[in-house]
């Protein structure tokens, strides 16, 4: 069918050119995403901060991205009281995608890229996925996103039970 062929070709062409429309700028000067392996994530859990929230994300997950600015606000407000926030991207293959997001949001807390190695090591299949750590122990594992209010309540609640 000629029409069928035409519409398929048209779709391919549209897709091809759409890719060039808006290419996100990468700002190399800001917060650099660091690579991390599963052992590194374990280390994060043992760091001196209390409480610690480790959020496992992928770049393409909207719910994950929406949490990031709230984390930034929490980090700015409570980092001096010991709050540690770490975001670990499990995008496959390359850290550029999460780097773009970090640059766009001007995030200043540490963001890591762990790839599928971290995903497999921690058996994560659904994102966002969060570990809440207090005094070196995982106290909560959360599947799914938190709302802004939930994050605030969580952080303030946790801070009270930290030394």
């Amino acid at each position, binding site marked *: 069918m000629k029409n069928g062929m035409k519409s398929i070709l048209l779709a391919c062409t549209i897709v091809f050119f759409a890719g060039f429309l808006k290419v996100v700028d990468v700002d190399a000067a800001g917060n650099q995403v660091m690579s991390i392996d599963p052992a590194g994530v374990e280390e994060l859990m043992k760091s001196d901060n209390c409480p610690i929230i480790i959020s496992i994300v992928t770049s393409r997950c909207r719910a994950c991205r929406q949490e990031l600015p709230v984390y930034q606000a929490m980090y700015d407000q409570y980092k001096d009281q010991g709050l540690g926030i770490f975001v670990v991207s499990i995008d496959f293959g390359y850290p550029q995608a999460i780097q773009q997001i970090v640059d766009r949001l001007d995030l200043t807390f540490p963001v890591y890229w762990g790839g*599928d190695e971290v995903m497999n090591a921690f058996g994560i299949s*659904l*994102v966002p996925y969060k570990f809440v750590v207090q005094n070196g122990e995982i106290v909560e594992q959360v599947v799914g996103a938190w709302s802004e209010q939930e994050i605030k309540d969580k952080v303030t609640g946790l801070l009270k039970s930290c030394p």
Partner: protein
Amino acid sequence: MEKSGYTRSYVLLILFLILMVIGINAGEVEAVLEKAISICLSCIGIG
């Protein structure tokens, strides 16, 4: 019975075969795998 009309089938077949090979070479196989095993909850209508 007319026998013609199958050239376009072969042309389409080869065209899409080429597209698929290009896709595979661009690393899209791993991209499919990634999206299929780290499920983003907001992408399936939950959360």
